[in-house]
Protein backbone atom coordinates (compact mmCIF):
# COMPACT_ATOMS: atom_id res chain seq x y z
CA UNK A 1 0.00 0.00 0.00
CA UNK A 2 1.46 3.29 -1.08
CA UNK A 3 0.71 5.27 2.03
CA UNK A 4 2.98 8.21 1.70
CA UNK A 5 3.47 9.33 -1.85
CA UNK A 6 4.61 12.92 -1.89
CA UNK A 7 4.44 14.51 -5.28
CA UNK A 8 7.96 15.48 -6.29
CA UNK A 9 7.89 19.23 -6.54
CA UNK A 10 10.20 20.57 -9.18
CA UNK A 11 12.31 23.05 -7.27
CA UNK A 12 14.73 25.47 -8.93
CA UNK A 13 17.57 23.12 -8.12
CA UNK A 14 15.69 20.26 -9.77
CA UNK A 15 15.25 22.24 -12.96
CA UNK A 16 18.94 23.10 -13.05
CA UNK A 17 19.81 19.45 -12.63
CA UNK A 18 17.40 18.46 -15.40
CA UNK A 19 19.13 20.87 -17.76
CA UNK A 20 22.56 19.53 -16.84
CA UNK A 21 21.43 15.98 -17.40
CA UNK A 22 20.16 16.73 -20.87
CA UNK A 23 23.39 18.52 -21.72
CA UNK A 24 25.51 15.68 -20.44
CA UNK A 25 23.55 13.02 -22.25
CA UNK A 26 23.82 14.86 -25.51
CA UNK A 27 27.60 14.82 -25.12
CA UNK A 28 27.91 18.61 -25.08
CA UNK A 29 29.96 18.74 -21.91
CA UNK A 30 32.65 16.29 -22.81
CA UNK A 31 35.13 18.53 -24.53
CA UNK A 32 35.98 21.28 -22.10
CA UNK A 33 39.33 22.90 -22.53
CA UNK A 34 41.76 22.15 -19.77
CA UNK A 35 42.98 25.66 -19.10
CA UNK A 36 45.48 26.18 -16.34
CA UNK A 37 43.50 25.33 -13.23
CA UNK A 38 44.64 28.24 -11.18
CA UNK A 39 43.90 30.80 -13.81
CA UNK A 40 40.49 29.38 -14.46
CA UNK A 41 39.55 29.38 -10.81
CA UNK A 42 40.75 32.93 -10.43
CA UNK A 43 38.89 34.11 -13.49
CA UNK A 44 35.71 32.54 -12.22
CA UNK A 45 35.96 34.52 -9.07
CA UNK A 46 34.32 37.69 -10.28
CA UNK A 47 35.14 39.61 -7.15
CA UNK A 48 38.83 38.89 -7.53
CA UNK A 49 38.78 40.09 -11.11
CA UNK A 50 36.92 43.24 -10.09
CA UNK A 51 39.53 43.70 -7.39
CA UNK A 52 42.37 43.50 -9.90
CA UNK A 53 40.69 46.06 -12.15
CA UNK A 54 40.06 48.58 -9.37
CA UNK A 55 43.56 48.01 -8.03
CA UNK A 56 45.17 48.73 -11.38
CA UNK A 57 43.02 51.80 -11.97
CA UNK A 58 43.99 53.35 -8.65
CA UNK A 59 47.62 52.37 -9.18
CA UNK A 60 47.69 54.11 -12.55
CA UNK A 61 45.93 57.18 -11.22
CA UNK A 62 48.45 57.58 -8.46
CA UNK A 63 51.70 56.75 -10.15
CA UNK A 64 50.89 58.50 -13.40
CA UNK A 65 49.43 61.42 -11.49
CA UNK A 66 50.87 64.20 -13.68
CA UNK A 67 48.76 62.82 -16.52
CA UNK A 68 45.58 63.43 -14.58
CA UNK A 69 46.17 66.66 -12.77
CA UNK A 70 48.08 69.82 -13.51
CA UNK A 71 48.47 71.00 -9.95
CA UNK A 72 51.38 70.56 -7.61
CA UNK A 73 50.35 68.75 -4.44
CA UNK A 74 52.18 71.20 -2.22
CA UNK A 75 51.03 74.34 -4.00
CA UNK A 76 49.55 76.61 -1.37
CA UNK A 77 46.93 79.04 -2.59
CA UNK A 78 45.45 80.66 0.46
CA UNK A 79 43.09 82.82 -1.51
CA UNK A 80 41.25 79.75 -2.73
CA UNK A 81 41.09 77.80 0.48
CA UNK A 82 38.17 75.57 1.48
CA UNK A 83 36.55 75.74 -1.90
CA UNK A 84 33.82 73.32 -2.82
CA UNK A 85 34.35 71.02 -5.78
CA UNK A 86 34.25 72.99 -8.98
CA UNK A 87 35.39 72.76 -12.56
CA UNK A 88 38.89 73.95 -11.78
CA UNK A 89 39.24 71.82 -8.66
CA UNK A 90 37.27 68.60 -9.10
CA UNK A 91 37.45 67.77 -5.43
CA UNK A 92 37.82 71.25 -4.05
CA UNK A 93 40.66 72.68 -1.98
CA UNK A 94 41.80 72.24 1.58
CA UNK A 95 42.66 74.59 4.42
CA UNK A 96 45.76 75.85 2.65
CA UNK A 97 44.19 76.06 -0.78
CA UNK A 98 45.89 72.90 -2.06
CA UNK A 99 43.95 70.92 -4.65
CA UNK A 100 42.44 67.94 -2.90
CA UNK A 101 42.32 65.69 -5.95
CA UNK A 102 46.03 66.22 -6.60
CA UNK A 103 46.88 65.54 -2.99
CA UNK A 104 44.92 62.31 -3.13
CA UNK A 105 46.75 61.14 -6.24
CA UNK A 106 50.22 62.01 -5.01
CA UNK A 107 49.41 60.89 -1.50
CA UNK A 108 48.40 57.55 -2.85
CA UNK A 109 51.94 56.96 -3.99
CA UNK A 110 53.31 57.24 -0.49
CA UNK A 111 50.53 55.25 1.14
CA UNK A 112 50.77 52.42 -1.36
CA UNK A 113 54.55 52.31 -1.17
CA UNK A 114 54.44 52.28 2.61
CA UNK A 115 51.84 49.51 2.60
CA UNK A 116 53.47 47.33 -0.01
CA UNK A 117 57.00 48.05 1.17
CA UNK A 118 56.19 47.14 4.75
CA UNK A 119 54.43 43.97 3.67
CA UNK A 120 57.37 42.89 1.52
CA UNK A 121 59.90 43.81 4.18
CA UNK A 122 58.00 42.02 6.91
CA UNK A 123 57.63 39.05 4.60
CA UNK A 124 61.32 39.01 3.80
CA UNK A 125 62.25 38.80 7.46
CA UNK A 126 59.35 36.71 8.66
CA UNK A 127 59.47 34.16 5.87
CA UNK A 128 63.24 33.73 6.02
CA UNK A 129 63.15 33.21 9.75
CA UNK A 130 60.08 31.02 9.65
CA UNK A 131 61.46 28.95 6.84
CA UNK A 132 64.77 28.19 8.45
CA UNK A 133 63.72 28.08 12.08
CA UNK A 134 60.59 26.11 11.28
CA UNK A 135 62.59 23.55 9.41
CA UNK A 136 65.42 23.23 11.90
CA UNK A 137 63.39 23.48 15.05
CA UNK A 138 65.28 23.34 18.29
CA UNK A 139 66.57 26.18 20.40
CA UNK A 140 66.60 28.83 17.70
CA UNK A 141 63.03 28.11 16.74
CA UNK A 142 61.95 28.21 20.37
CA UNK A 143 63.57 31.57 21.02
CA UNK A 144 62.17 33.24 17.93
CA UNK A 145 58.79 31.72 18.68
CA UNK A 146 58.73 33.27 22.16
CA UNK A 147 59.79 36.62 20.74
CA UNK A 148 57.05 36.54 18.18
CA UNK A 149 54.49 35.59 20.83
CA UNK A 150 55.64 38.54 22.87
CA UNK A 151 55.31 40.93 20.00
CA UNK A 152 51.91 39.66 19.06
CA UNK A 153 50.62 40.25 22.56
CA UNK A 154 51.02 43.97 22.05
CA UNK A 155 48.11 45.74 20.42
CA UNK A 156 49.71 46.68 17.12
CA UNK A 157 48.97 50.36 17.22
CA UNK A 158 50.25 50.72 20.76
CA UNK A 159 53.52 49.06 19.90
CA UNK A 160 53.95 51.24 16.84
CA UNK A 161 53.20 54.43 18.75
CA UNK A 162 55.57 53.35 21.48
CA UNK A 163 58.36 53.06 18.95
CA UNK A 164 57.37 56.33 17.31
CA UNK A 165 57.71 58.03 20.69
CA UNK A 166 61.18 56.66 21.09
CA UNK A 167 62.65 57.09 17.63
CA UNK A 168 60.64 60.01 16.37
CA UNK A 169 58.38 60.55 13.41
CA UNK A 170 59.61 60.23 9.86
CA UNK A 171 58.71 58.33 6.73
CA UNK A 172 61.71 56.02 6.93
CA UNK A 173 61.22 55.44 10.62
CA UNK A 174 57.65 54.48 9.99
CA UNK A 175 58.62 51.93 7.36
CA UNK A 176 61.19 50.40 9.68
CA UNK A 177 58.76 50.35 12.59
CA UNK A 178 56.08 48.70 10.46
CA UNK A 179 58.49 46.04 9.32
CA UNK A 180 59.72 45.44 12.85
CA UNK A 181 56.20 45.04 14.21
CA UNK A 182 54.88 43.09 11.25
CA UNK A 183 57.31 40.24 10.77
CA UNK A 184 55.88 38.17 13.61
CA UNK A 185 52.68 37.03 11.92
CA UNK A 186 54.52 36.28 8.67
CA UNK A 187 56.97 34.23 10.67
CA UNK A 188 54.22 32.23 12.33
CA UNK A 189 52.56 31.48 9.04
CA UNK A 190 55.74 30.47 7.24
CA UNK A 191 56.72 28.34 10.19
CA UNK A 192 53.39 26.53 10.17
CA UNK A 193 53.85 25.76 6.49
CA UNK A 194 57.34 24.45 7.14
CA UNK A 195 56.18 22.23 9.97
CA UNK A 196 53.75 20.46 7.73
CA UNK A 197 56.13 20.27 4.76
CA UNK A 198 58.89 18.91 6.97
CA UNK A 199 57.23 15.53 7.08
CA UNK A 200 57.15 15.13 3.31
CA UNK A 201 59.25 12.36 1.90
CA UNK A 202 61.31 14.45 -0.46
CA UNK A 203 62.68 16.30 2.53
CA UNK A 204 63.86 13.06 4.08
CA UNK A 205 65.41 12.11 0.77
CA UNK A 206 67.27 15.41 0.49
CA UNK A 207 68.59 15.04 4.00
CA UNK A 208 69.75 11.54 3.23
CA UNK A 209 71.72 12.95 0.32
CA UNK A 210 73.52 15.19 2.77
CA UNK A 211 72.27 18.42 1.29
CA UNK A 212 72.81 21.55 3.32
CA UNK A 213 69.92 22.66 5.55
CA UNK A 214 69.73 26.12 4.05
CA UNK A 215 69.41 24.71 0.56
CA UNK A 216 66.71 22.27 1.63
CA UNK A 217 64.71 24.92 3.39
CA UNK A 218 64.94 27.69 0.85
CA UNK A 219 65.43 26.04 -2.47
CA UNK A 220 63.22 23.00 -2.10
CA UNK A 221 60.60 23.57 0.57
CA UNK A 222 59.88 27.26 0.27
CA UNK A 223 58.49 27.17 -3.30
CA UNK A 224 55.82 24.79 -2.06
CA UNK A 225 54.65 27.25 0.51
CA UNK A 226 54.47 30.21 -1.83
CA UNK A 227 50.70 30.13 -2.20
CA UNK A 228 49.78 31.04 1.38
CA UNK A 229 52.74 33.40 1.54
CA UNK A 230 51.52 35.36 -1.46
CA UNK A 231 48.07 35.53 0.05
CA UNK A 232 49.50 36.77 3.31
CA UNK A 233 51.57 39.48 1.64
CA UNK A 234 48.49 40.75 -0.16
CA UNK A 235 46.41 40.84 2.98
CA UNK A 236 49.25 42.40 4.97
CA UNK A 237 49.51 45.22 2.46
CA UNK A 238 45.88 46.01 3.11
CA UNK A 239 46.47 45.98 6.83
CA UNK A 240 49.55 48.22 6.66
CA UNK A 241 47.77 50.78 4.53
CA UNK A 242 44.97 50.89 7.07
CA UNK A 243 47.51 51.28 9.84
CA UNK A 244 49.29 54.13 8.14
CA UNK A 245 45.97 55.87 7.59
CA UNK A 246 44.99 55.57 11.23
CA UNK A 247 48.32 56.83 12.45
CA UNK A 248 48.49 59.73 10.03
CA UNK A 249 44.94 60.68 10.87
CA UNK A 250 46.12 61.13 14.43
CA UNK A 251 49.05 63.11 13.13
CA UNK A 252 51.44 60.50 14.48
CA UNK A 253 52.25 58.66 11.30
CA UNK A 254 54.01 60.12 8.31
CA UNK A 255 54.99 63.73 9.02
CA UNK A 256 52.33 66.16 7.88
CA UNK A 257 54.44 67.85 5.23
CA UNK A 258 54.39 64.72 3.07
CA UNK A 259 50.97 64.08 1.68
CA UNK A 260 49.55 60.64 2.28
CA UNK A 261 45.99 59.46 2.34
CA UNK A 262 46.02 59.42 6.11
CA UNK A 263 47.47 62.92 6.37
CA UNK A 264 44.72 64.30 4.20
CA UNK A 265 42.21 62.79 6.58
CA UNK A 266 43.98 64.49 9.46
CA UNK A 267 42.03 67.64 8.74
CA UNK A 268 38.82 65.87 9.63
CA UNK A 269 39.77 65.96 13.28
CA UNK A 270 38.09 69.32 13.30
CA UNK A 271 34.35 68.90 13.73
CA UNK A 272 33.61 71.92 11.60
CA UNK A 273 35.51 70.48 8.67
CA UNK A 274 33.75 67.18 9.24
CA UNK A 275 30.39 68.79 9.00
CA UNK A 276 30.88 71.40 6.36
CA UNK A 277 33.73 70.40 4.10
CA UNK A 278 32.89 66.87 3.13
CA UNK A 279 35.11 66.98 0.03
CA UNK A 280 38.20 67.14 2.18
CA UNK A 281 37.78 63.80 3.85
CA UNK A 282 34.99 61.77 2.28
CA UNK A 283 36.62 61.10 -1.13
CA UNK A 284 39.95 60.12 0.46
CA UNK A 285 38.23 57.71 2.79
CA UNK A 286 36.34 56.19 -0.08
CA UNK A 287 39.49 55.78 -2.15
CA UNK A 288 41.27 54.14 0.76
CA UNK A 289 38.36 51.79 1.34
CA UNK A 290 38.12 50.93 -2.34
CA UNK A 291 41.82 50.23 -2.60
CA UNK A 292 41.93 48.08 0.52
CA UNK A 293 38.75 46.33 -0.60
CA UNK A 294 40.27 45.50 -3.96
CA UNK A 295 43.43 44.20 -2.31
CA UNK A 296 41.31 42.05 0.00
CA UNK A 297 39.35 40.68 -2.95
CA UNK A 298 42.59 39.81 -4.73
CA UNK A 299 43.96 38.16 -1.60
CA UNK A 300 40.79 36.13 -1.13
CA UNK A 301 40.81 35.15 -4.77
CA UNK A 302 44.43 34.02 -4.48
CA UNK A 303 43.60 32.04 -1.40
CA UNK A 304 40.65 30.31 -3.03
CA UNK A 305 42.52 29.45 -6.18
CA UNK A 306 45.65 28.10 -4.51
CA UNK A 307 43.72 26.08 -1.97
CA UNK A 308 43.61 22.53 -3.32
CA UNK A 309 40.56 21.57 -1.31
CA UNK A 310 38.34 24.15 -2.94
CA UNK A 311 36.53 22.98 -6.04
CA UNK A 312 37.27 24.73 -9.28
Amino acid at each position, binding site marked *: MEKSVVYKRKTKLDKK*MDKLRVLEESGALKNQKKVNRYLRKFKNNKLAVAGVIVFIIILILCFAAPLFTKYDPGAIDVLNRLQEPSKSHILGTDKLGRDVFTRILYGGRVSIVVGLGSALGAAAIGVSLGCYAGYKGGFLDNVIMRISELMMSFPRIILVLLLVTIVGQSLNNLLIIFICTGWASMYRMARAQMLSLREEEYVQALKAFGINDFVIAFKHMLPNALGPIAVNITLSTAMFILQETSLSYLGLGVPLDISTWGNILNAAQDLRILRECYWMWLPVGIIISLFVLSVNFIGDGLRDSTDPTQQG
Partner: protein
Amino acid sequence: MKNDVVLSVKNLKTFFYTNQRCNKAVNGVSFDIKRGKTLCIVGESGCGKSVTATSIMRLLPKLSRIEEGEIVYHSSKGDIRLDTLKKNGKEMRQIRGSEIAMIFQDPMTSLNPVYTVGFQVIENLKNHRKMSKKAAKSEAIRLLKDMGIPLPEQRVDEYPHQYSGGMRQRAMIAMAMSCNPKVLIADEPTTALDVTIQAQIFELMDKLKKENDTAVMMITHDMGVVAEMADDVAVMYMGNVVETGSVDQVLRKPSHPYTRALLESIPVLGRGKNQVIEPIRGVTPDPFDRPEGCQFGPRCDYYCDKCKTMPDEITIDGHMVRCWNYKEVLKDA
Protein backbone atom coordinates in the same frame (compact mmCIF):
# COMPACT_ATOMS: atom_id res chain seq x y z
CA MET B 1 8.17 -14.67 -0.13
CA LYS B 2 6.93 -11.31 0.94
CA ASN B 3 7.60 -11.90 4.59
CA ASP B 4 11.24 -12.47 4.00
CA VAL B 5 12.14 -9.36 2.03
CA VAL B 6 12.49 -6.26 4.21
CA LEU B 7 13.83 -3.80 1.67
CA SER B 8 13.60 -3.94 -2.13
CA VAL B 9 15.53 -1.69 -4.43
CA LYS B 10 14.24 -1.61 -8.01
CA ASN B 11 16.13 0.01 -10.84
CA LEU B 12 17.61 2.74 -8.66
CA LYS B 13 19.35 5.60 -10.47
CA THR B 14 21.19 8.30 -8.55
CA PHE B 15 22.95 11.11 -10.39
CA PHE B 16 25.45 13.66 -9.06
CA TYR B 17 25.47 17.19 -10.42
CA THR B 18 28.73 18.61 -9.04
CA ASN B 19 31.23 20.68 -11.00
CA GLN B 20 28.56 21.47 -13.58
CA ARG B 21 28.58 17.89 -14.86
CA CYS B 22 26.14 15.01 -14.56
CA ASN B 23 27.70 11.91 -13.05
CA LYS B 24 25.57 8.79 -13.27
CA ALA B 25 26.97 7.24 -10.12
CA VAL B 26 24.23 4.61 -9.81
CA ASN B 27 22.63 3.69 -13.09
CA GLY B 28 20.04 0.99 -12.61
CA VAL B 29 20.55 -1.10 -9.50
CA SER B 30 18.16 -3.72 -8.11
CA PHE B 31 18.43 -6.07 -5.16
CA ASP B 32 16.50 -7.34 -2.15
CA ILE B 33 17.53 -7.39 1.48
CA LYS B 34 16.05 -10.30 3.39
CA ARG B 35 15.19 -10.56 7.05
CA GLY B 36 17.85 -12.22 9.16
CA LYS B 37 20.28 -12.43 6.26
CA THR B 38 23.37 -10.51 5.22
CA LEU B 39 23.57 -9.08 1.71
CA CYS B 40 27.11 -8.11 0.76
CA ILE B 41 27.48 -5.48 -1.91
CA VAL B 42 30.96 -5.82 -3.30
CA GLY B 43 32.85 -3.81 -5.88
CA GLU B 44 35.83 -1.52 -6.49
CA SER B 45 36.08 2.02 -5.15
CA GLY B 46 33.86 4.31 -7.12
CA CYS B 47 31.44 1.68 -8.37
CA GLY B 48 28.56 3.28 -6.52
CA LYS B 49 28.07 1.03 -3.51
CA SER B 50 28.20 3.79 -0.89
CA VAL B 51 25.94 5.97 -3.01
CA THR B 52 23.37 3.18 -3.05
CA ALA B 53 23.43 3.06 0.73
CA THR B 54 23.12 6.84 1.06
CA SER B 55 20.27 6.81 -1.42
CA ILE B 56 18.36 4.29 0.65
CA MET B 57 18.88 6.36 3.79
CA ARG B 58 18.00 9.54 1.86
CA LEU B 59 21.24 11.13 3.03
CA LEU B 60 22.39 12.30 -0.36
CA PRO B 61 24.23 15.65 -0.53
CA LYS B 62 22.59 18.71 -1.98
CA LEU B 63 23.83 18.50 -5.55
CA SER B 64 22.49 15.01 -6.22
CA ARG B 65 19.16 13.23 -6.43
CA ILE B 66 17.43 9.95 -7.06
CA GLU B 67 16.50 10.13 -10.73
CA GLU B 68 14.46 6.99 -11.16
CA GLY B 69 13.61 3.78 -9.45
CA GLU B 70 11.93 2.60 -6.31
CA ILE B 71 13.13 1.91 -2.81
CA VAL B 72 10.42 -0.06 -1.03
CA TYR B 73 10.62 -0.64 2.68
CA HIS B 74 8.32 -3.48 3.71
CA SER B 75 7.48 -2.34 7.21
CA SER B 76 5.09 -3.87 9.67
CA LYS B 77 2.62 -1.13 8.74
CA GLY B 78 2.78 -1.81 5.04
CA ASP B 79 5.02 -0.91 2.13
CA ILE B 80 6.61 2.52 2.18
CA ARG B 81 8.21 4.04 -0.91
CA LEU B 82 11.30 5.66 0.62
CA ASP B 83 12.24 7.45 -2.57
CA THR B 84 9.06 9.51 -2.53
CA LEU B 85 9.25 10.67 1.06
CA LYS B 86 10.48 14.13 1.88
CA LYS B 87 14.19 13.87 2.56
CA ASN B 88 14.08 15.34 6.05
CA GLY B 89 10.39 15.01 6.64
CA LYS B 90 8.92 13.55 9.77
CA GLU B 91 8.18 10.14 8.25
CA MET B 92 11.64 9.54 6.84
CA ARG B 93 13.27 10.75 10.02
CA GLN B 94 11.15 8.37 12.02
CA ILE B 95 12.35 5.50 9.91
CA ARG B 96 15.95 6.63 9.94
CA GLY B 97 17.73 5.50 13.04
CA SER B 98 14.97 3.34 14.43
CA GLU B 99 13.88 1.07 11.60
CA ILE B 100 16.73 1.45 9.15
CA ALA B 101 20.10 2.31 10.70
CA MET B 102 23.53 2.84 9.25
CA ILE B 103 27.11 2.58 10.46
CA PHE B 104 29.98 4.24 8.67
CA GLN B 105 33.50 3.54 7.69
CA ASP B 106 35.65 5.63 10.00
CA PRO B 107 34.34 5.66 13.56
CA MET B 108 36.80 8.33 14.65
CA THR B 109 35.43 10.99 12.34
CA SER B 110 31.89 9.66 12.39
CA LEU B 111 31.43 10.33 16.08
CA ASN B 112 31.11 13.88 17.31
CA PRO B 113 34.27 14.64 19.31
CA VAL B 114 32.76 17.13 21.72
CA TYR B 115 29.99 14.93 23.11
CA THR B 116 30.31 11.79 25.20
CA VAL B 117 29.57 8.45 23.60
CA GLY B 118 26.68 8.04 26.00
CA PHE B 119 25.19 11.33 24.87
CA GLN B 120 25.26 10.26 21.25
CA VAL B 121 23.71 6.86 21.93
CA ILE B 122 21.03 8.41 24.13
CA GLU B 123 20.33 10.98 21.42
CA ASN B 124 19.18 8.19 19.13
CA LEU B 125 17.14 6.57 21.88
CA LYS B 126 15.35 9.70 22.96
CA ASN B 127 14.68 10.77 19.41
CA HIS B 128 12.61 7.68 18.69
CA ARG B 129 11.22 6.66 22.08
CA LYS B 130 9.85 8.38 25.08
CA MET B 131 12.32 7.67 27.86
CA SER B 132 13.33 9.31 31.07
CA LYS B 133 16.94 10.43 31.40
CA LYS B 134 17.72 7.68 33.85
CA ALA B 135 16.10 4.96 31.78
CA ALA B 136 17.92 6.16 28.65
CA LYS B 137 21.26 6.15 30.41
CA SER B 138 20.86 2.64 31.78
CA GLU B 139 19.72 1.47 28.35
CA ALA B 140 22.83 3.04 26.83
CA ILE B 141 25.01 1.24 29.36
CA ARG B 142 23.28 -2.01 28.59
CA LEU B 143 23.83 -1.50 24.86
CA LEU B 144 27.52 -0.77 25.33
CA LYS B 145 27.85 -3.87 27.44
CA ASP B 146 26.06 -6.00 24.83
CA MET B 147 28.46 -4.74 22.20
CA GLY B 148 31.34 -6.03 24.25
CA ILE B 149 32.67 -2.75 25.65
CA PRO B 150 34.22 -3.35 29.06
CA LEU B 151 33.32 -1.14 32.05
CA PRO B 152 30.32 0.38 30.29
CA GLU B 153 29.22 2.42 33.33
CA GLN B 154 32.47 4.34 33.09
CA ARG B 155 32.76 4.37 29.32
CA VAL B 156 29.34 5.84 28.77
CA ASP B 157 30.59 9.21 30.07
CA GLU B 158 33.79 9.21 28.08
CA TYR B 159 34.58 10.90 24.80
CA PRO B 160 35.28 9.20 21.48
CA HIS B 161 38.95 10.12 21.54
CA GLN B 162 39.31 8.14 24.75
CA TYR B 163 38.16 4.95 23.03
CA SER B 164 40.24 2.60 20.90
CA GLY B 165 39.40 2.07 17.22
CA GLY B 166 37.56 -1.18 17.70
CA MET B 167 35.65 0.15 20.69
CA ARG B 168 34.53 3.16 18.70
CA GLN B 169 33.06 0.99 16.02
CA ARG B 170 31.31 -1.06 18.67
CA ALA B 171 29.89 2.14 20.09
CA MET B 172 28.65 3.11 16.63
CA ILE B 173 27.00 -0.27 16.29
CA ALA B 174 25.46 0.18 19.72
CA MET B 175 24.09 3.53 18.60
CA ALA B 176 22.70 2.06 15.39
CA MET B 177 21.14 -0.98 17.07
CA SER B 178 19.73 0.99 19.99
CA CYS B 179 16.20 1.08 18.60
CA ASN B 180 16.29 -2.44 17.22
CA PRO B 181 16.21 -1.59 13.52
CA LYS B 182 14.89 -4.03 10.96
CA VAL B 183 17.68 -3.12 8.53
CA LEU B 184 21.28 -2.37 9.35
CA ILE B 185 23.39 -0.85 6.59
CA ALA B 186 27.13 -1.14 7.19
CA ASP B 187 29.37 0.88 4.88
CA GLU B 188 32.80 -0.77 4.97
CA PRO B 189 32.71 -0.91 8.77
CA THR B 190 36.12 -2.46 9.22
CA THR B 191 38.22 -0.85 6.50
CA ALA B 192 39.68 1.57 9.01
CA LEU B 193 40.47 -1.11 11.59
CA ASP B 194 43.10 -3.79 12.15
CA VAL B 195 42.42 -7.22 10.77
CA THR B 196 42.14 -8.80 14.22
CA ILE B 197 39.60 -6.21 15.29
CA GLN B 198 37.85 -6.79 11.99
CA ALA B 199 37.17 -10.37 12.96
CA GLN B 200 35.73 -9.29 16.31
CA ILE B 201 33.41 -6.75 14.74
CA PHE B 202 32.10 -9.25 12.23
CA GLU B 203 31.51 -11.75 14.99
CA LEU B 204 29.50 -9.13 16.80
CA MET B 205 27.46 -8.26 13.75
CA ASP B 206 26.73 -11.89 13.06
CA LYS B 207 25.54 -12.36 16.63
CA LEU B 208 23.25 -9.34 16.40
CA LYS B 209 21.84 -10.50 13.13
CA LYS B 210 20.96 -13.90 14.55
CA GLU B 211 19.59 -12.58 17.85
CA ASN B 212 17.48 -9.78 16.44
CA ASP B 213 16.61 -11.11 13.01
CA THR B 214 18.09 -7.93 11.51
CA ALA B 215 18.54 -7.67 7.78
CA VAL B 216 22.12 -6.59 7.14
CA MET B 217 23.39 -4.82 4.04
CA MET B 218 27.17 -4.88 4.13
CA ILE B 219 29.22 -2.84 1.73
CA THR B 220 32.77 -3.95 1.13
CA HIS B 221 35.53 -4.15 -1.44
CA ASP B 222 37.05 -7.22 0.15
CA MET B 223 36.07 -10.63 -1.24
CA GLY B 224 37.34 -12.22 1.95
CA VAL B 225 34.65 -10.37 3.91
CA VAL B 226 32.09 -11.60 1.43
CA ALA B 227 33.16 -15.20 1.85
CA GLU B 228 33.04 -14.80 5.62
CA MET B 229 29.87 -12.85 6.20
CA ALA B 230 27.52 -13.01 3.27
CA ASP B 231 24.37 -14.99 2.80
CA ASP B 232 23.67 -13.19 -0.45
CA VAL B 233 25.98 -11.25 -2.73
CA ALA B 234 25.52 -8.41 -5.19
CA VAL B 235 28.51 -7.51 -7.35
CA MET B 236 28.62 -3.91 -8.59
CA TYR B 237 30.64 -2.33 -11.35
CA MET B 238 30.43 1.29 -12.57
CA GLY B 239 26.98 1.90 -11.17
CA ASN B 240 25.35 -1.37 -12.15
CA VAL B 241 24.77 -4.63 -10.34
CA VAL B 242 26.33 -7.23 -12.63
CA GLU B 243 25.56 -10.33 -10.63
CA THR B 244 23.51 -11.32 -7.61
CA GLY B 245 22.75 -14.57 -5.88
CA SER B 246 23.45 -16.53 -2.77
CA VAL B 247 27.06 -16.58 -1.67
CA ASP B 248 27.32 -20.19 -2.80
CA GLN B 249 26.06 -19.39 -6.27
CA VAL B 250 28.16 -16.29 -6.88
CA LEU B 251 31.42 -17.44 -5.35
CA ARG B 252 31.40 -21.00 -6.60
CA LYS B 253 29.79 -20.45 -9.97
CA PRO B 254 30.55 -16.87 -10.99
CA SER B 255 28.64 -16.15 -14.19
CA HIS B 256 29.82 -12.64 -14.94
CA PRO B 257 33.30 -12.02 -16.38
CA TYR B 258 33.93 -9.31 -13.82
CA THR B 259 33.07 -11.52 -10.87
CA ARG B 260 35.29 -14.23 -12.23
CA ALA B 261 38.12 -11.80 -12.84
CA LEU B 262 37.76 -10.45 -9.30
CA LEU B 263 37.94 -13.88 -7.78
CA GLU B 264 40.96 -14.80 -9.89
CA SER B 265 42.86 -11.69 -8.85
CA ILE B 266 42.84 -12.49 -5.15
CA PRO B 267 45.72 -14.43 -3.63
CA VAL B 268 44.50 -17.29 -1.48
CA LEU B 269 46.20 -18.22 1.76
CA GLY B 270 47.48 -21.74 1.57
CA ARG B 271 47.71 -22.07 -2.18
CA GLY B 272 51.43 -21.37 -2.07
CA LYS B 273 53.64 -18.90 -3.82
CA ASN B 274 53.22 -20.34 -7.28
CA GLN B 275 49.48 -19.73 -7.47
CA VAL B 276 48.24 -17.86 -10.49
CA ILE B 277 47.04 -14.31 -9.77
CA GLU B 278 45.56 -12.54 -12.74
CA PRO B 279 45.05 -8.80 -12.43
CA ILE B 280 42.11 -7.46 -14.39
CA ARG B 281 43.41 -5.90 -17.59
CA GLY B 282 42.63 -2.31 -18.45
CA VAL B 283 41.52 0.45 -16.13
CA THR B 284 38.23 1.60 -14.67
CA PRO B 285 36.74 4.00 -17.21
CA ASP B 286 36.29 7.69 -16.51
CA PRO B 287 32.70 8.12 -15.28
CA PHE B 288 32.30 11.01 -17.70
CA ASP B 289 33.55 9.02 -20.66
CA ARG B 290 31.75 5.72 -20.36
CA PRO B 291 31.85 2.88 -22.87
CA GLU B 292 28.69 2.14 -24.82
CA GLY B 293 26.49 -0.63 -23.52
CA CYS B 294 28.03 -2.98 -20.99
CA GLN B 295 30.45 -1.02 -18.84
CA PHE B 296 32.89 -3.88 -18.42
CA GLY B 297 33.17 -4.36 -22.19
CA PRO B 298 36.65 -2.91 -22.89
CA ARG B 299 38.19 -5.08 -20.19
CA CYS B 300 36.27 -8.25 -20.91
CA ASP B 301 37.62 -11.41 -22.50
CA TYR B 302 34.18 -12.37 -23.74
CA TYR B 303 33.38 -9.11 -25.50
CA CYS B 304 31.28 -9.42 -28.60
CA ASP B 305 29.18 -7.12 -30.76
CA LYS B 306 26.04 -7.76 -28.81
CA CYS B 307 27.70 -6.19 -25.76
CA LYS B 308 27.23 -2.74 -27.28
CA THR B 309 23.78 -2.82 -25.74
CA MET B 310 23.41 -3.11 -21.99
CA PRO B 311 22.67 -6.76 -21.15
CA ASP B 312 19.31 -7.57 -19.59
CA GLU B 313 19.01 -9.11 -16.18
CA ILE B 314 18.93 -12.85 -16.68
CA THR B 315 17.78 -14.78 -13.63
CA ILE B 316 17.99 -18.54 -13.17
CA ASP B 317 16.99 -20.02 -9.83
CA GLY B 318 17.59 -16.80 -7.89
CA HIS B 319 21.01 -16.26 -9.50
CA MET B 320 20.98 -13.05 -11.58
CA VAL B 321 23.61 -12.03 -14.09
CA ARG B 322 23.91 -9.16 -16.56
CA CYS B 323 25.91 -10.66 -19.35
CA TRP B 324 25.02 -11.90 -22.79
CA ASN B 325 27.76 -14.50 -22.69
CA TYR B 326 27.28 -15.92 -19.23
CA LYS B 327 26.96 -19.41 -20.59
CA GLU B 328 30.54 -19.26 -21.88
CA VAL B 329 31.76 -17.88 -18.57
CA LEU B 330 30.18 -20.75 -16.73
CA LYS B 331 31.58 -23.25 -19.20
CA ASP B 332 35.13 -21.97 -18.77
CA ALA B 333 35.01 -22.14 -14.98
